[in-house]
């Protein structure tokens, strides 16, 4: 009896492994293709069909890392992403605390209104943003893109942080007030360290959503703050598309996410679901 049960169990694990193996293969194959292509020469890409680079080269990466018009794209993206992260966290922390601790006039409507901004199609905002930031002289600056991305990142930050803050018992606040802490001191010295992991997760998602966005960042910049995503369209030259460099640029945009992915693996679902899992 026990033997047959074990056998069945063993078979099921195998079935699971096959399903997962196939699914992961489906996910990784296109990424693998991008990676091998970034390590091939253009001659190899266009003239022979090879499953892995025969003529291994790092020239494509060298091109990007030494050509200013390429690597400034990365620096520009980094700049507005970090500015956006700082602004979003700074305004969202107190707001999330208020939503998690107090009821006040119109709180539910306000919370919903914030959500609608996360759901607003960026295409609707592209033109008005362009005109708004042009008229205040912020067009083609990092701060313009950072502010524009606040449209969906601030609501996201408020929602995720509120989810984490709800988990901190209210007794801690009350004890701190009885001990004579003022609100700002309590918030910075006691409360913020308690939700540190939540802040880390939120920062990751702010980074990610600002990093992956193209439409707004492309519309709001031309030269000085051009993001890497927009630079990538430049590979179409007189001699056709420079596939190797395009692939290398793509691989480099995946790196920031891939570096920290292990640390946030258990929070990915939470971040995408606005803290509601």
């Amino acid at each position, binding site marked *: 009896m026990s033997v047959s049960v074990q056998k069945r169990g063993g078979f099921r694990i195998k079935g*699971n492994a096959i*399903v*997962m193996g196939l699914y*992961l293969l489906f*996910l*990784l*194959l*296109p*990424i693998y*293709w*991008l990676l091998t*292509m970034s390590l091939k020469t253009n001659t190899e890409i*266009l003239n022979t069909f090879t*499953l892995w680079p025969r003529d291994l080269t790092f020239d494509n990466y060298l091109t990007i890392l030494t050509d200013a018009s390429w690597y400034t794209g990365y620096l520009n993206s980094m700049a507005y992403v970090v500015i956006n992260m700082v602004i979003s966290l700074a*305004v969202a922390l*107190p*707001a999330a605390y*208020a939503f998690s*601790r*107090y009821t*006040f006039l119109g709180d539910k409507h*306000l919370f*919903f209104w914030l*959500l*609608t*901004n996360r*759901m*607003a*199609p*960026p*295409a*609707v905002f*592209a*033109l008005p*943003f*362009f005109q708004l930031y042009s008229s205040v002289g912020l067009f083609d600056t990092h701060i313009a893109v950072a*502010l524009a991305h*606040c*449209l969906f990142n*601030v609501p996201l930050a408020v929602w995720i942080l509120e989810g984490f803050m709800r988990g901190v018992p209210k007794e801690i606040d009350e004890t701190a007030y009885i001990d004579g802490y003022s609100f700002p001191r309590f918030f910075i010295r006691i409360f913020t360290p308690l939700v540190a992991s939540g802040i880390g997760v939120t920062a990751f998602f702010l980074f990610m959503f600002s990093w992956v966005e*193209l*439409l707004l960042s492309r*519309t709001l910049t031309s030269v000085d703050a051009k993001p890497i*995503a927009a630079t*990538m369209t430049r590979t179409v030259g007189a001699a056709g598309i420079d596939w190797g460099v*395009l692939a290398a640029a*793509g691989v480099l945009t*995946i790196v920031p*996410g*891939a570096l920290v*992915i*292990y640390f946030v*693996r*258990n929070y*990915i*679902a*939470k971040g*995408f*679901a606005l803290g509601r*899992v």
Partner: protein
Amino acid sequence: MNKTVNQKAWFLILPVLVLVAFSAVIPLMTVVNYSVQDTFGNNQFFWAGIDWFREMMDSERMWDALGRQIAFSAIILAIEIPLGIFVALNMPKRGFWASFCLVLMSLPLLIPWNVVGTIWQIFGRVDIGLLGYTLDAMGIDYNYTQNFYAAWITVIVMDVWHWTSLVALLAYAGLQSIPDAYYQAAKIDQASRWAVFRFIELPKITGVLMIAILLRFMDSFMIYTEPFVVTGGGPGNSTTFLSIDLVKMALGQFDLGPAAAFSIMYYLVILLISYVFYTVMTNLDKRDGH
């Protein structure tokens, strides 16, 4: 948690309010402004009433884009939701392999959207892409820049590749919260695998599935970058979805009035859906006793 009534909490909300007002309300008002005015240039505007709205309602172009958009969202939901649940059921529960799967599955979610487009643009090319080359070698006529079906299939497979993991991760989070005792009880009852899924697992993950469905619906309804990079909306107009059409109209042709009217209708649809989303989520929160 029982919350205290405190009107001073408004001061904590104020920074968010000011920021979002600047980045959402002012632009939105600009759109409303354009939608009811017409111009012959030179920044001279005159009142046009609801003419633009009427024009957009009669516009075949908008209805076609809307039709394509709905078809696209329906197809990807019909594939991603069942596939995501299926994958979640097959994921290892704990240990090294669970982390391994989580990390690899999250990878597509974190790739910039235009790079997702680039990946599939390269992958599907007949001359240099693994997928295109293989299909071509098998004798299948596949060319996503010229063939209607090939373009649609590429865009759909790309979206499935990009977002199925999100559904799977949400469903997985829901499955993790089921106590082992439930499965033991089912084992004693000698319940079939299907019965376990139907009566234990499915009811427990309904909440997260609702979130998954609504998130995927909404994000697919706003999709722009990925199909834009791969097909550019073509061949012809066959993969021109709402956002692509809107950007073409507003930033390409600079037809401010119609584009603004289009934007407002588009936004109202999203707003309506967001409201459903919010109601469903708050009800679920209440049921779970938060």
